[in-house]
């Protein structure tokens, strides 16, 4: 009985990979890390930025109805991402947190060109993306992949695992069905699925297994940079840990760089090397994980961190309750976007002038007038 039940479960520890390591080798061979020095900053952290964003903006113009057009009035703009400067270094996991509607998913998708940016530059591996030629652009699309939040809607229900993965392989340029088959059979055990799953359809899998298919699909293109857009928030607690571990193992094996988007701060704390906190389309604070969690400086980060429920009694702190809710990104407040909810407001400067993200010597960046006055 137990054996029958065990038989259906995915293997607990991943089998040692003969071919997988080969896969990794070919990966590293194709990569020639270009050392980019960014005013000494990358060198300070001992890494080179793989992805760099300069003043990235994504604005959506709301369509007006006929009546509104006749009535005139201003055009309404949703500033989902509003001027983000960010570096993501080779091999690191950058956690991106914020409340719903703050633009964190949009940012991830804009980097991958799933939404064209409204302004600003995305520099991947030293080259601005908008300058790329068609072939190079194709190569970028292969190297930058995404794992979606909802494993139920991100897989085509009419396609089997084989078809889903074969499509990704074809996009990579692998068109021989026999080679595809071989590659898929290598890939499946790597993400904790068995070869027996190859002809099944998404509905035959549990949520955790579906997310593994999503991971396999991203991995099939041999990416260097993966945007994980809330990959575990639709999963149960015990399954969440399986996927987090899988992502960590894959990162070590294939030297992946992650942009890990999540709203669950405990998960972010666990997986990230650095954390960026977003509020209304802007990054308000960025620092190394431990630094950020031990010494949050922006009032929003402080409130956010104090609001997380914690299992351990020693880890609890006094809760800072923010009043009000996140304002809409349509007509967001002038000055610092956080000032209507801020408990450290310094008067007019906060209401009128948007603060810049200022870094200190340990590359802990904060965008807050009150912090900068100290």
């Amino acid at each position, binding site marked *: *009985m*137990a054996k029958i*039940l*065990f038989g259906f*479960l*995915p293997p*607990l520890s991943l089998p040692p990979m003969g071919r997988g390591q080969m896969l990794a080798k070919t990966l590293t061979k194709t990569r020639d890390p270009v050392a980019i020095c960014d005013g000494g900053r990358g060198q300070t952290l001992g890494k080179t930025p793989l992805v760099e964003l300069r003043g990235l903006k994504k604005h959506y113009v709301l369509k007006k109805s006929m009546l509104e057009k006749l009535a005139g009035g201003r055009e309404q703009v949703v500033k989902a991402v509003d001027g983000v400067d960010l570096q993501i270094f080779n091999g690191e996991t950058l956690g991106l947190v914020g*409340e*719903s509607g703050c633009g964190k998913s949009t940012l991830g998708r804009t980097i991958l060109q799933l939404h064209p940016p409204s302004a600003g530059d995305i520099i991947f591996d030293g080259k601005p993306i908008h300058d790329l030629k068609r072939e190079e652009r194709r190569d970028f699309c292969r190297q930058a992949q995404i794992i979606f939040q909802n494993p139920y809607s991100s897989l085509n229900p009419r396609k089997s695992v084989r078809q889903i993965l074969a499509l990704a392989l074809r996009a990579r340029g692998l068109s021989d069905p026999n080679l595809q088959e071989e590659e898929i059979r290598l890939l499946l055990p790597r993400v904790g699925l068995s070869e027996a799953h190859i002809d099944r359809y998404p509905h035959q899998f*549990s949520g*955790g*297994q579906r997310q593994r298919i999503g991971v396999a699909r991203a991995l099939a293109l041999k990416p260097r940079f993966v945007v994980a857009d809330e990959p575990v928030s639709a999963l*149960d*607690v*015990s*399954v*969440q*840990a*399986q996927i*987090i*571990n899988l992502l*960590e193992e894959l990162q070590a094996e294939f030297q992946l760089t992650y942009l890990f988007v999540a*709203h669950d*701060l*405990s*998960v972010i*704390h*666990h*997986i990230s090397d650095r954390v960026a906190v977003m509020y209304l389309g802007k990054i308000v604070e960025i620092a190394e994980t431990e630094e950020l*969690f031990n010494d949050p400086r922006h009032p929003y980060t402080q*409130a*956010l961190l*104090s*609001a*997380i*429920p*914690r*299992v*351990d*009694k*020693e*880890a*609890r702190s006094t*809760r800072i*309750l*923010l009043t009000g*809710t*996140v304002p809409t990104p349509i007509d967001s407040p002038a000055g610092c976007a956080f000032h209507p909810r801020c408990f450290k407001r310094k008067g007019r400067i906060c209401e009128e002038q948007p603060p810049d993200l200022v870094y200190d010597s340990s590359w802990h960046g904060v965008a807050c007038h009150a912090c900068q006055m100290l």
Partner: protein
Amino acid sequence: MLAIEQLTMIYETKRGRVKAVNKVDLSLGTGEILGLVGESGCGKSATLLTILGLVPYPGKVTGGRIIFQGEDLLQKTPAELRKIRGKEIAMIFQDPMTTLNPVFKVGEQIRESLQIHGLMNEQAEGGWFKGRKRKESEVDRVYQLMREVGIPSPEKRYFEYPFQFSGGMQQRAIIAIALACSAQLLLADEPTTALDVTIQAQILELLAKINRERETAMVLVTHNLAMAAEFCQRIAVMYAGEIVEQGPTDEVLEKPKHPYTQGLLRSIPRIGKVKQKLEPIPGTVPDLASLEDGTCPFYPRCAQAQPACLEDECTLEDVGGGHWVKCALYN
């Protein structure tokens, strides 16, 4: 105040009998907060719905008793239950947007509860304008409730529709509905899952305040162990329709006895601890329809499984200090 004994609820489906709630024992004192934690599909919400007599169609209660204030709720007629629901026992559902009716004003929806349970009858005086006076006093009471749950400027927001409320405000309005008739027992089914972290903290603070000021007993259903840890006095852990461990919060979280609780605690990332690799529980939650009677449902995923686990059905055993565990290791 509330005592559930050996409650069993099954769904009769084509694929067989699904024991959604299997021999559940729970008790709750006045003013106490009990946390019911577990993964999705483990029967937490089904237990709450059974208490209120709201079991959806193929479901049937096949055994047990639900004693609320000395009376068995399972023996009540639907009409009697309707009088209890909303008045003595109120429920807060997970998704505020689907709980509120989108085509009625929020204030009216709160007033409806007062109207149905006829609480304002005595206060209204007789005479020509009886109905109008009654409505006025009800509206005043709604303003008061809205203020109590922290909805600003109730005179304005009474006349707004749910879509004009943010998620947190909607949840506050739902809490106001639950409070309208001063229910003694509040069943909260994942009240903050649909909300952001900072709003979640606001709502939990509000619920804690209600518990302090009104001494309302609460059952909080959640999958978030940390939330239950901070908010509840006692915790019951559910797995596959059964309660596997129950006890005072600190006791359960610091000295977990059941392998499932232990596994769950090891698999969540914690802030403030040295980072370790997470140890997930292998496998997934079992399909309830294919479970066999008499065996431990956690057996296939359990690291400490023994042959004894398959033989006898365990019962909840007291391991001291009001800490109960259902596991062959402690039988």
